[in-house]
């Protein structure tokens, strides 16, 4: 693998880590599978590109966060107020966002962002070729820091407890509906920021760029957990980031091997399926081991 490819993977890994942190909040902290991610990713990208075209790239990043929060809030309301299952609520939001995203993009399926000022432009002089990497890293570290602090506040505690045991949280006088709202909004807000940075980095937004994002986010979370552990909160968050980078390296490796880029979604799905099935594999393996160790004993009888 060339240095170019490694740097590219690292850069993408850092940006997608922001999305993975969002997915971590919904899947792990709230224990809710939220599929609106596929839509809110593009929403963030679309909002940010449109804002950049109008000369406000940094404002666009903030707007992408807020737009993502809005999308997450809709999913949360569908689930908590209308009692729609979390999976379906997410799918509904994702579907609706497809139309919304096209509206944001003025009816076009693809908007290029060439020769416009992006969020990376101001750093070109200082960081040269590393401007994208440097700025993405800075945004990621800021988000990591704020998220870590947030999860240590009273609201953060209650958010974590809601995913763990919502009956307990209600028994302690907190409205879990509003906690789910905050959690999903925050989660999708981060996903929106990641979408915005990806669009800025690749200089275009495409209405189909969100397909499979939730799976990629989940893959990062799980790879991180398996490889780097879950012993403390900070470690868990770091593991998500490292998982995202590792995932990009795996993909880059697959491409190096000559796999066509169109097969990547298949690879992602297989990675997540294997990672999710780990507990089953481990159990089977231990049963097989016990059987094997039992045989000589029985023979001696």
């Amino acid at each position, binding site marked *: 693998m060339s240095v170019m490819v490694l740097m590219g993977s690292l850069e993408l890994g850092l940006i997608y880590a922001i999305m993975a942190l969002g997915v971590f909040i919904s899947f792990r902290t709230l224990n809710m599978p939220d599929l609106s991610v596929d839509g809110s990713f593009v929403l963030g990208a679309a909002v940010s590109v449109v804002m950049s075209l109008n000369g406000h790239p940094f404002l666009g990043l903030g707007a992408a966060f807020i737009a993502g929060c809005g999308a997450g809030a809709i999913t949360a309301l569908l689930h908590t107020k209308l009692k729609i299952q979390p999976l379906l609520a997410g799918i509904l939001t994702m579907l609706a966002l497809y139309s919304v995203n096209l509206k944001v993009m003025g009816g076009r399926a693809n908007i290029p962002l060439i020769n416009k000022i992006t969020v990376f432009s101001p750093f070109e002089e200082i960081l040269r070729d590393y401007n994208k990497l440097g700025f993405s890293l800075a945004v990621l570290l800021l988000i990591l820091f704020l998220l870590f602090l*947030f999860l*240590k*506040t*009273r*609201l*953060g*505690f*209650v958010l*974590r*407890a809601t995913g*763990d*045991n919502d*009956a*307990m*949280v*209600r*028994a*302690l*006088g*907190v*409205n*879990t509906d509003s*906690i789910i709202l905050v959690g999903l909004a925050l989660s999708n807000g981060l996903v929106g920021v990641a979408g915005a940075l990806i669009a800025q980095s690749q200089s275009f937004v495409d209405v189909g760029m969100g397909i499979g994002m939730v799976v990629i986010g989940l893959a990062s979370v799980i790879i991180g957990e398996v490889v780097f552990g879950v012993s403390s909160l900070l470690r868990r968050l770091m593991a998500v980031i490292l998982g995202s980078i590792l995932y990009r390296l795996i993909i880059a490796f697959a491409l190096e091997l000559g796999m066509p880029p169109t097969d990547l979604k298949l690879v992602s799905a297989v990675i997540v399926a294997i990672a999710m099935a780990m507990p089953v594999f481990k159990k089977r393996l231990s049963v097989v081991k016990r059987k094997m160790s039992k045989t000589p004993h029985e023979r001696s009888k």
Partner: protein
Amino acid sequence: MLRVESLSKIFSKGSTNEKLALRDVNLSLGEGEFVTIIGGNGAGKSTLMNCISGVYEIDNGRITLDSTDITFEPEYKRSRHIGRVFQDPLRGTAHDMTIEENLSIAFAKGKSVGLQAGVSKKDINLFKERLQLLDLGLENRLKHKVGLLSGGQRQALTLLMATIIKPRLLLLDEHTAALDPTIARKVLSLTRKIVSEENLCTLMITHNMKASLEYGTRTIMMHEGQIMMDLQGQERKDMTVDRLIEQFEKRSGAELDNDRMLLG
């Protein structure tokens, strides 16, 4: 002070499985009264508790707590004045969080939930003090995850969490039923200690007839969604388990079929 007036609860209303779980229940608890509830399976004990705590919406009646009508308040709002311990030790605590984090959430009951620090130094000293009362050595394990604790330890912790902000009413739903006898006795005596020290208005469901007479100041027996017997004062003091069973069979016209209740 709790007041339940003509409370009715029907499950699966309108279907063939319709079940009248509570029929016209009236119950009134005075300041600091500690009531134990006994009854067979399906008698409506847990349903009564879930109606009071707001888990179930009721079909008829009124519930008042300290002269506030809470009949239509959502569960989480009532919980600010009601402490609860469930039968399942897993339900009362967040297993992936530490002891001090769990206690902090409990200690924030009724306060605003915002971006203030989750745990403060000042609170930790108070937590240690309270945990010492449990006599389980938990005061030295504040940073341990609750998932590492035994069922009994978790129930004791839940009891502490339910009462760390003094509730107007404490609801205990067979909170020792899933524990082994030794630790169950310990949690029960702890319950008695906390209830009497804080002078808490308490409802405790138990499957153990002996415990129902031994603990608390009043015992009610439920059968088929109604309160069948209400023992207090001298009548309760003179009551024995054998006579309680005899009374039950006479009044209900049914035989007591619950081995768990008899053997407990």
